């Protein structure tokens, strides 16, 4: 189980203090598939980044399974926890352009010091799972947007994380490929993983088990 209690987050830019999250309370069960919606600039990405340990919060409490995540979590610790427990999918894919699909998928395991052979073996299996078993050697620029995002999902899954966090994963895709990608997410969900998808499309949100609405820096529903 994941729980956030009274999470606050400020940004300071150009000497202006922006209060983005104003006491977010939230809990997500293991194996749940939820979506987060909210208007642009409402703090969806900020929330997701805090959940994913890419960013720290200013105030409140965050419990990730058995681990209490303190506000001042060290970078090294965060990197370790990310690598072990969390998989990311971004709107802009964030694949390394000079690595093939297979190598992109295998990369997180490199930071777990798992050997190349084992890495590539697992990466191949995951590319199979997302329907790209034939494109392992392709470079990112040889893949369509939907294919890139499926590679990114395979990469998010390779460390067998507790949860997958996706920030507008279909934001850059057309409706046909959006369906492909959502199908993959649902497939992954069926294997028991927790999935959190930030989106602004109701179609997407409706395909999840629960909708979390962010408004005025708080969870409205």
């Amino acid at each position: 189980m994941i729980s956030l209690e009274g999470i606050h987050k400020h940004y300071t830019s150009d000497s202006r203090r922006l209060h983005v999250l104003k006491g977010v309370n939230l809990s997500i069960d293991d194996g749940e598939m939820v979506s987060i919606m909210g208007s642009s600039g409402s703090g969806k990405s900020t929330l997701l980044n805090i959940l994913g340990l890419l960013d720290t919060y200013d105030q409140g409490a965050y419990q990730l399974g058995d681990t209490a995540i303190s506000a001042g979590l060290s970078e090294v610790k965060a990197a370790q926890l990310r690598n072990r427990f969390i998989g990311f999918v971004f709107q802009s894919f964030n694949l390394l352009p000079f690595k093939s699909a297979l190598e992109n998928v295998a990369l997180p395991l490199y930071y777990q010091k798992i050997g190349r052979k084992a890495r590539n073996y697992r990466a191949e299996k995951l590319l199979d799972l997302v329907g790209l078993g034939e494109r392992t050697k392709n470079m990112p620029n040889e893949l369509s947007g939907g294919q890139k995002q499926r590679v990114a999902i395979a990469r998010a899954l390779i460390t067998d994380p507790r949860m997958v966090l996706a920030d507008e994963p279909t934001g850059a895709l057309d409706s046909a490929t959006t369906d492909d990608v959502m199908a993959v997410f649902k497939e992954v969900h069926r294997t028991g993983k927790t999935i959190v998808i930030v989106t602004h499309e109701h179609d997407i949100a409706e395909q999840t088990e629960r909708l979390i609405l962010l408004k005025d820096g708080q969870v409205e529903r």
Partner: protein
Amino acid sequence: MSLDALQEVWFTLNQNRLRTFLTAFGVFWGIFMLVLLLGVGQGLKNGIEQSFSSDVRTSMWISSNKTSLPYRGLPQGRHIKLQESDVDFLKNQFTEINIIAAEEPLGSNFRADIYITYGQQSGSFSVLGAGANYFKIKKNQNYHYGRRLNDFDEADARKVVVVGTKVAERLFGNEYNPIGHQIAINGVSVKIVGVFYDSGWEGRMSERIYMPLAAFQKTFGKGQNIGSIAVVPHNGVDNIALSERILGMLKERHKISPQDNTALRLFDLAKETEEINNTFAGIGLFLWFVGLGTLMAGIVGISNIMIISVKERTREIGIRKALGARPRQIIYTILSESLLVTLIAGYVGLVLSVGLLGLYNWMTNEIGLELPYFSHPEVDIHIAIVALLVLVCVGAVAGLVPSWQAARISPIEAMREEA
């Protein structure tokens, strides 16, 4: 470094070829040029050293000419002739003298009227009578065949000669050992006992023939006159002070005005050597200067490329961090990349430049290619390696600072950068 990490580094370098190439080229060029310039400098130095004659470097040569001032009732324009007795006199007068020897040329130093023949072959070469101890001064002559003239040759007035390599080549052709053969000097038959090479005057001193002075005088009807006297002082003796005292003494013996500067001529090898050495020390310094400039340019270039490339990679670094790379791993990766590139490029630069110098030396030996005042360019490998290490360290440090910064910015921030 594990094989896997090395593969990862190699992979990144290979996939980002332009960046890799630019870094590599900076290092390569810096090392390549530095080694080449230092090699050329050494080649010039060697070339100059080779063009010095084989005479002992501290030797002074005294010869005579016409007087330019009247003295004690004697007119000016009088021909002064040094005598064999001057040699013994000076030897007794000056304990500072280590070696002293006489030399007398055949003819009036023009060799056009001297005919050297062997069978059908003939040529014109200088012929010199060489007094006792003469070859102690021609210490650095290189004997290809046979031996030097010695005291017995002189004592017995043997009709033997040593000839320079150019003489032997003309009369006997290349690679032929002429020892024991008789040649004729203006019709007088003499036997060859040695063939020498003398680098003096850029090898033209190898166009000479030497004969024991006693036999020379008898054979060619010479009296006690000699052309020049060579003096080598003991170690630590001031050449200039000694030469002034010797000249003073000789002027007195030959009734020359103390103010007459033309009747006796002095050639001080030590002084000449020093002047030439100074000139080439200047050139050497200049080459160092240019070489270090190249190295500095390389250093600046590498630093820039490292800084730019790390900036370029901010997004990549952000992605890697999001996927679980720790800051230390990021720095380690970038550092390994720059070290690998600079080391390999520097090594290639080192090998190619040293190879090029080697090729020149090989061509000199095999094909006989020769440049004037340039010989056997080589480089102190220690200097080259130090230069390489400097470049590698600079590359590493230049990469370290920006990669350290990049590793510290948050992954979200970094991923926001345009790729």
